[in-house]
């Protein structure tokens, strides 16, 4: 991660580049690990057709589904297709079908954005091409197995804040966690940690940023 210094001003740690999926390593609870989840996907690739499963990473907004999928795609050395509300669905489906023809696991971020015909097509083609599907969704889609359920707990929250403020003065972290802005934001956004971190961009700018232009 490269931090730019503009006129001796340190980057705001709550900027989008530090909060985008994959920027903060995913933290697992219990004894689960990235390798074991990747193994489940790989084993589905090698299993007989009738045992192949469709897997889903499920959880509310801002709890790390996209981050986990991105880590899995790096671990499995395959690409994940990300679907936004404004994505061109035709292009996205075409990309996924190409990945299927290469016999790679198909990772789809934002499965719910696909139209019904798109989902039907991809499920059918995944069976024909014998590749596993792994998607992110807010709810478990029909006929999918749960790969991982993301949620925010104090351990995850602490890990994220520690990562973001690793280079900052230790007092800043305690100021942040004790601030009213943080408390209000967590109450407002609840499970959605990302939105709370976004709100802290304003807090950092107004409280911590000390601008000193060199002229």
């Amino acid at each position, binding site marked *: 991660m490269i931090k730019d210094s*503009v006129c001796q001003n340190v980057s705001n740690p709550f900027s989008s580049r530090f909060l985008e999926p994959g920027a903060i390593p995913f933290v697992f609870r219990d004894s689960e690990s990235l390798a074991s989840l990747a193994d489940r996907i790989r084993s589905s690739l090698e299993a007989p057709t009738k045992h192949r499963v469709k897997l889903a990473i499920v959880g509310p907004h801002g709890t790390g589904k996209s981050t986990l999928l991105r880590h899995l795609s790096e671990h499995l050395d395959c690409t994940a297709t990300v679907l936004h509300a404004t994505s061109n669905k035709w292009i996205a489906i075409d990309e996924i079908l190409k990945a299927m023809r290469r016999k790679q696991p198909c990772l789809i971020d934002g499965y719910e954005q696909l139209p019904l015909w798109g989902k039907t097509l991809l499920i059918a083609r995944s069976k024909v091409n014998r590749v596993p599907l792994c998607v992110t969704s807010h709810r478990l889609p029909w006929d999918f197995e749960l790969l991982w359920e993301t949620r925010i707990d104090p351990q995850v929250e602490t890990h994220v804040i520690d990562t973001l403020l690793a280079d900052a003065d230790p007092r800043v972290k305690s100021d942040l966690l004790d601030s009213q802005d943080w408390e209000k934001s967590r109450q407002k956004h609840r499970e959605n940690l990302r939105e709370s971190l976004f709100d802290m961009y304003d807090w950092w700018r107004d409280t911590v940023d000390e601008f000193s232009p060199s002229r």
Partner: protein
Amino acid sequence: MIRLIGLQPTYMPGDTLEFEYRVANVDRGSIVAVECSVCWLTEGKGTEDLGVHFFQRLAGDSLAAIDWSIAQKISCPLPISPLSYEGKLLKISWCVRVRFFLNDGTELMAQQPFYVGTITREV
């Protein structure tokens, strides 16, 4: 190690940006390509945007002709926009980046920011 020499902290729009770069402690034979760019980027709450104003790539024959014992000079006129800016939701900053690509897959990068214009904060 890459050193950038001669960059000023501030430039005015339309000024000519001149600097030199040199590389040390690197086997010259292992350099596969060199890229030098002058670009602006946004930072803040929005997805980052990048605008490349100047880009030079040296590889193959053009790379072989370079004498790495002397500093390489770069000169480019700066545009009138965008000016460096620090606002509430976004910041715009300029920087010079020099990347060396080595034959073992390693990438060395040096980056130095600079300011364009005289605007320091949101209006």
